[in-house]
């Protein structure tokens, strides 16, 4: 009997603490309604199955900002979310971004981000700004998200879209959450206009290509990077020949012996040393460089599914053209 009474007392203490926590959050935020996840359907092709669609569902199921009011205190806890928020929202509305987006070697909008207070991506830091919208990434710590939800801070998860259509959808959805739908449309239109200028001749054989990322990773089928390569007129060997799905590590030997026409190195212009990136300077790659078109594509252009992927497509299209010329002269 005593045990049960203790348990009940414990439970009520916990509930009390929970209610106190809820009271701290402003009552307006408690009325937040979830938006349905409209992103999932197009972000993932139907084939990919329900499990993936469900994962993407989290992306907007948590979304809780009233669509009619512009959030006034937006805090972003993820690099990709930082950039979209800085592009879409008024500068005065974004209160804090991650430290990653202040580094010009990682980020596209470093100058803009440097003017804002930085955070390390912890939920606790976000709460310090009394946010009415918190943007989190796809790999955010579930405990952090739970904490944010518990205190009633509306959160929107910015996902990692796997298709161009998913990128457009994500921009529109986030623009809606920020109360800036026109800016979202404008951003999508600008990106599409740049993409439209990259034309691929359907009758010509596509140069073969392979991506080499730090730590020897490459990208295969069903990834945004694969679509970027295809859109730039390249034939991704990892997807077509090796039948790799999404990301996988490939031994350097395999890259060297496939000898693609274009080798795409995912690397930053200049950065502190790491073994991961040292692998891209391996003598075997250097030795084979004369027979390939080697192009460096900084991670900031294609890690996040933002409008900057248009520049990635443009740069790869230039490399594809160079590879065609090289093949013709050989």
């Amino acid at each position: 009997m005593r045990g049960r009474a203790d348990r009940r007392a414990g439970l009520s203490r916990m509930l009390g603490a929970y209610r106190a926590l809820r009271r701290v959050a402003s009552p307006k935020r408690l009325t937040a309604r979830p938006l349905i996840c409209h992103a999932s359907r197009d972000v993932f092709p139907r084939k990919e199955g329900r499990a993936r669609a469900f994962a993407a569902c989290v992306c907007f199921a948590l979304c809780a900002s009233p669509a009619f009011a512009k959030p006034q205190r937006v805090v972003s806890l993820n690099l990709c979310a930082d950039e979209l928020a800085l592009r879409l929202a008024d500068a005065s509305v974004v209160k804090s971004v991650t430290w990653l987006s202040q580094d010009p070697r990682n980020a596209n909008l470093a100058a803009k981000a440097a003017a804002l207070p930085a955070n390390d991506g912890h939920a606790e830091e976000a709460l310090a700004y009394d946010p009415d919208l918190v943007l989190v990434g796809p790999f955010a710590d579930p405990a952090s998200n739970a904490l944010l939800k518990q205190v009633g801070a509306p959160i929107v998860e910015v996902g990692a879209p796997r298709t161009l259509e998913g990128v457009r959808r994500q921009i529109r959805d986030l623009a809606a959450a920020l109360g800036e739908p026109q800016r979202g449309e404008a951003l999508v239109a600008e990106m599409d206009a740049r993409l439209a200028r990259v034309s691929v001749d359907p009758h010509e054989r596509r140069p073969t290509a392979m991506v080499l990322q730090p730590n020897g990773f490459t990208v295969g089928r069903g990834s945004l990077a694969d679509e970027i390569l295809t859109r730039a007129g390249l034939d991704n060997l990892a997807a077509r020949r090796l039948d790799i799905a999404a990301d996988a590590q490939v031994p350097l030997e395999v890259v060297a012996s496939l000898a693609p026409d274009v080798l795409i190195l995912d690397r930053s212009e200049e950065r502190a040393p790491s073994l991961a990136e040292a692998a891209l300077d391996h003598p075997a790659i250097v030795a084979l460089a004369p027979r390939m078109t080697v192009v460096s594509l900084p991670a900031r252009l294609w890690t996040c599914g933002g409008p900057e992927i248009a520049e990635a497509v443009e740069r790869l299209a230039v490399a594809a053209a160079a590879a065609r010329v090289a093949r013709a002269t050989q």
Partner: protein
Amino acid sequence: MSARAAGAEIAYGPLVFALAALTLAAAVVSLSLGYARLDLAGAISDAFAGRSTVAAVVLEQIRLPRAALGAVVGFSLGLAGAALQGLLRNPLADPGVIGVSGGAAFGAVVVFYSGLAGAFALAMPLGGVAGAVVAALSLYALVGRGAGTMTLILAGVTVNSFAGALTALALNLSPNPYAAYEIMFWLMGSLADRSLPQLWLAAPLTVAGWALLIASAPALDALTLGEDTAASLGFDLGRLRAQLIAGAALAVGAAVAVTGAIGFVGLVAPHLLRPLVGNRPGRLLLVSGFGGAIVLLVADIVVRLIPVHPELKLGVATALIGAPLLYGLIDRMRKEA
């Protein structure tokens, strides 16, 4: 000599020759194994003719450094293990177990991630050597002159975990976002995608270390009779200690700077070969070197044959063999005591 009563002793010369031949065979197997199909004969003829075909590049720039580094690093670890065991008169003194490899990894990490490695070519292996020297000296300060096994193991645990923590700290302080994920490489070691320039960087220092260690053979044999007897036979023990610590630090430090810390090789090789040389620490040196090279080459062949992606770290394979052995060794020593 009572040591000869051990029984299984084999003539020294043929034993060394046989182990050297086995090392060569393991290196050839390692060379012929890989992830891409390779016409080995064609690749070799291309390489010798100086044609830089894809096959020749794969052979020369990817497989050759892997096999050669496997042999060099394995030889260093086996030899250093045997030498440290002779110096401390304790069969558990493996560079990995007692923290010399961990110290070397920390030294190399500091030099590499701070960008110092770009300053001059030998900076990184020298960083490894410096870390190994500090670890070896701090260990020797605790356990020198025949302290018990317990003290040795505890001191090793301390040096190892402190070096590991410092390595993790240094990696986390790096501004490169990838650095923090590279702790596995430094603690477990790997030969994957190493390169020829790395071999040329590590080789001179490791070879200098080998020379120092092998030259200490007569003094190590004398040391088995006790320090006083060895001193009365004319061996300068202070010099011997300095020579062994410097030799082990050069060999292990430069090797670890290229491949990360690979544990247990210096424990397994001397343990398996000790009975074959009649328990003479001087003779064990060269033999253990080749034994270490074979162990490491075979472990590296195994990690490539196990269909696990990404590839297993080399230290995982050596620990799977070495840790049970260490357990058994400690158990036996406990019963004998």
